[in-house]
């Protein structure tokens, strides 16, 4: 095996990467209990080490191939063909980097945020990191499902224990939505594995094997629906997005950063890996439908953001809109669309993570998130206002910042698929500029209505330290996206090759879709 971990990096890098945070959590629980500065440092060191390891893996990563790298494979449950099989391609490698990066940011950002049961909070963050990394690195369906569900638990506790006033409602809603979608997916997993067993005589949960299975149309349709619903809830796509505003508003800052930054991406990642990989025919057939839902999400999310009185809720709804772009780009199924989609996942993780982080910093100072309570904040908090402007501009797609690259590529891709969809998506961009700038204007500029705010302290060194890396990445991707896109070329070709045989069906459906819109 060419891309075995042994040849490529010499040690079980992926396993180490996944379980390093969990090991750190156990060490903190056993040895550092009762000493806040010690276990906080422990959490930071663990997350930094994990991030460093992921960067080290990047140096050994080959960008010229779509093959899965750093593979590890050994038998877990022999009689059922379940293996502990890990590996990453360019897409999952980017997601892994995003996860390890944002985990560091979230841990530094919540250094003084949590007052109650701090140890549990940092342990939850680290266990969450393990779960997320496992999702992105699994090459076995069973293993994937295990990680997919396990990461729910730390997030459930993060929202439920350390969240805001309606945290219990939000935590339970978050859990039940995702869980309900996943269990249906579990039956679909069992059904496709059974079908493959019947037709080939071997029982396997290996993702690559199942991707080559060539499921018949009826299985593809039901399988696609079951997988797609589970992932659409996670993204979240309209109309199953209703858990998101609650979860985001009630979650502590670090929870929101991770939720928006990584967890939502797991949904799209699942679509790329499984909907496209297992059910290419059904996926192509569903393109107009998904495109329609994406465009609705873009415009609906933006329109709702426009009228939010609460900053955090505004950012939350803007996520619905931005993730609409991501799904639209993916389902355009062309080079620009798919690459833009994956890149925009990274961009959204960076920018929305940063926006949530900043809202958290403001909230720690003022204890309010209502936009009307703010105004003129640029005077007492000039540094914060500067950072905030950078992230707001990035989020609305200003050229030179990363949001622009992703949205531009996506629009290019969507335009090739259906002009009408691109037109409607552009309306979302205009609305996005409107609600973000309007919010910025009402909070940072205008008269300083509340004189109390004059005494507020500007960002301290730690807070600046959390924002600088985010800003640096935002600028870097904005100015020089090539290294990131290079990682995506080969996997994108692979995705397009998977759907290629069915593209003809998509063509005919475009007309159907455009006639649906009234003959544009």
């Amino acid at each position, binding site marked *: 095996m060419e891309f075995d971990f042994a040849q490529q990096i010499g040690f079980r890098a992926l396993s180490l990467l996944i379980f390093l945070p969990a090991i750190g959590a156990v060490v903190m629980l056993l040895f550092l209990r009762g000493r806040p500065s010690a276990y906080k440092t422990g959490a930071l060191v663990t997350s930094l080490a994990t991030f460093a390891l992921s960067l080290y893996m990047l140096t050994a990563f080959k960008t010229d191939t779509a093959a899965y790298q750093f593979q590890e494979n050994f038998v*877990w*449950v*022999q*009689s*059922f063909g379940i293996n502990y099989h890990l590996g990453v391609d360019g897409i999952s490698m980017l997601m892994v980097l995003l996860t390890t990066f944002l985990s560091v940011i979230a841990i530094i950002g919540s250094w003084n945020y949590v007052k109650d049961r701090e140890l549990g909070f940092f342990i939850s963050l680290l266990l969450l990191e393990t779960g997320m990394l496992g999702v992105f690195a699994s090459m076995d369906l069973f293993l994937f*499902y*295990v*990680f997919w*569900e*396990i990461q*729910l*638990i730390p997030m*459930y*506790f993060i929202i*439920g*224990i350390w969240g805001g006033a309606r*945290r*219990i409602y939000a*935590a*339970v809603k978050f*859990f*039940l939505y995702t*869980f*309900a979608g996943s*269990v*249906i997916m*579990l*039956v679909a997993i*069992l*059904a496709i594995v*059974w079908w493959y067993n019947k037709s080939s005589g071997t029982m396997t949960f290996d993702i690559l094997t199942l991707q080559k299975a060539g499921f018949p149309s009826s299985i593809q349709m039901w399988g696609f629906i079951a997988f797609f619903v589970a992932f659409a809830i996670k993204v979240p796509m309209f109309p199953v997005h209703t858990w998101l505003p609650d979860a985001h508003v009630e979650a502590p800052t670090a929870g929101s950063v991770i939720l928006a930054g990584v967890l939502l991406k797991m949904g799209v990642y699942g679509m790329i890996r499984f909907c496209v990989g297992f059910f290419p025919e059904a996926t192509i057939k569903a393109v107009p439908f998904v495109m329609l839902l994406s465009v609705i999400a873009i415009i609906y999310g933006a329109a709702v953001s426009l009228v939010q009185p609460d900053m955090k809720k505004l950012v939350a709804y803007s996520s619905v809109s931005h993730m609409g772009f991501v799904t639209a780009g993916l389902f355009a199924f062309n080079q620009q669309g798919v690459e833009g989609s994956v890149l925009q996942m990274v961009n959204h993780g960076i920018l929305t993570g940063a926006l949530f982080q900043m809202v958290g910093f403001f909230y720690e100072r003022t204890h309010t998130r209502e936009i009307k309570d703010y105004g003129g904040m640029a005077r007492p908090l000039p540094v914060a206002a500067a950072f905030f402007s950078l992230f707001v501009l990035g989020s609305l797609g200003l050229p030179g910042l990363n949001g622009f690259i992703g949205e531009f590529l996506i629009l290019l891709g969507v335009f090739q698929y259906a002009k009408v969809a691109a037109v409607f998506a552009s309306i979302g961009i205009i609305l996005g500029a409107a609600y973000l700038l309007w919010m910025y204007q009402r909070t940072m500029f205008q008269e300083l209505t509340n004189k109390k705010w004059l005494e507020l302290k500007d960002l301290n060194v730690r807070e600046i330290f959390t924002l600088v890396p985010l800003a640096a990445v935002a600028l870097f991707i904005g100015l020089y996206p090539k290294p990131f896109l290079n990682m995506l070329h080969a996997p994108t070709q692979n995705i397009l090759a998977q759907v290629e045989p069915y593209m003809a069906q998509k063509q005919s459906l475009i007309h159907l879709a455009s006639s649906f819109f009234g003959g544009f």
Partner: protein
Amino acid sequence: MKTSDLLTILPEIILALAACAILLLEPFLKKDKTANIAIALTALIASGVAALGLGGETRSSFSNMVVLNDYAIFFAVLFAAAGALTVLMTPRYLEAYERHMGEFYALLLFAVVGMDLMAASRDLIAFYVGLELMAVSSYLLAGFLRYQIKSNEAALKYLVTGTFASAITLYGVSLVYGLTGATNYQQVGQALMASGNTTGVGLATALVLVGTGFKISAAPFHMWTPDVYEGAPTPVTAFFSVGPKAAALSAILVIFVTVFQASAHTWSVIFIALSLVTMLVGNLFALVQKNIKRMLAYSSIAHVGYLLAGLGALGALDQGFLPGQAILLYLAAYTFMNLGAFAVLVYLKTQDSVHFDYSLSDMAGLARRSPWAAILMSLFMFSLTGIPGTAGFIGKFYLFNSIVRADLTWLAVIAVVFSAVSAFYYLRVIVYMFFREPEVEFQPREGINGSMAAALALCSLAVVVIGLVPASAWTAAQNAWVNLFG
């Protein structure tokens, strides 16, 4: 009778002798019951070890009335484990009620003897004797706190409905005998196969099904369950929720695949219908319970619903062992996670027997009062929900897999939808423990005692081990099922 006959029932003999020893020793013991506890534990472990030691070959005795094969051994070990865990969690609980008497352990051992017999019997008479031995011991155990009005209520309800159910079962058994002139499973099965489907066979099947349906509390025969579970002493409830239920299922499995094998497709449909009703009733009523014991009672009904779906798949698949194996694995997983959940409740009751009343609000803020109890309870709740990494997920995974393979995907979809519903009431316990603050002041009494700690440790260990390394548990279930007919 030969010596080898006795070897076949050695696990049962050990338990019965130990129970008698406990009863003889009891008058000589003062307050300290350590000796009797030790006898009970030793006997349970010895019976499990003896069963394992006698494995490898199929022993059949008393004119083929009782066998000791991998199937019987699987259940003998499982029941011994359930009994031992119950013994471990009991002492301080009974002390709190000042009813710590050796009879409790003797009754428990007799119940386990009955359960072992049910799994090992290959004859309708032997099955019925086992059933009654288990049932009568259970009635007494339910009413063990005889100065508590709820315990009395539980015993009476259990006695009346249980006797009723036994009588119905017996009537079905007598019909079978009348139709075939035999009581041996194999002979009856062949005779029924030859006679074809007649009204008499249908009636007999229905009666046996209704009678045993009572025992496993399948809806609509579940009405007694919540009251009995709520009123019985909590360690006894823990035992009821796993032991008699698994025993009745072990017998149902054997009887239906041997005695009623001719009508497999008919009873498959009946079990599927029962499964749908049971899942619905169990999950919906569990949603509205404020008392955790009642909630767990309904949750146990829900789990029986999943198991019945497995039985439906078993009947639908003429060949193929998967559903039977999956049911056995599910029972093992369910035993440990449910016993664990009850063990936490018993522990909390012994901590503050005055205030703690098993209501959800009593759990509020538990994570602050005793974090380890809260963490363990969460583990068991997650396992009951079926979250990966726990035994509950493995049980559901194999069970639903077997249902899908019986081409009953729609049934699997309904079952997982219900397990999504169940997440709500299991998570609510966690919500109270971790997300809410205490509503009343609790005075924690003293630390955990050794035996309770052991019970909790063993349950959680089993839940995690089966959850992460399911291969060995699966192999055991597989061997047990394959050798069912041997």
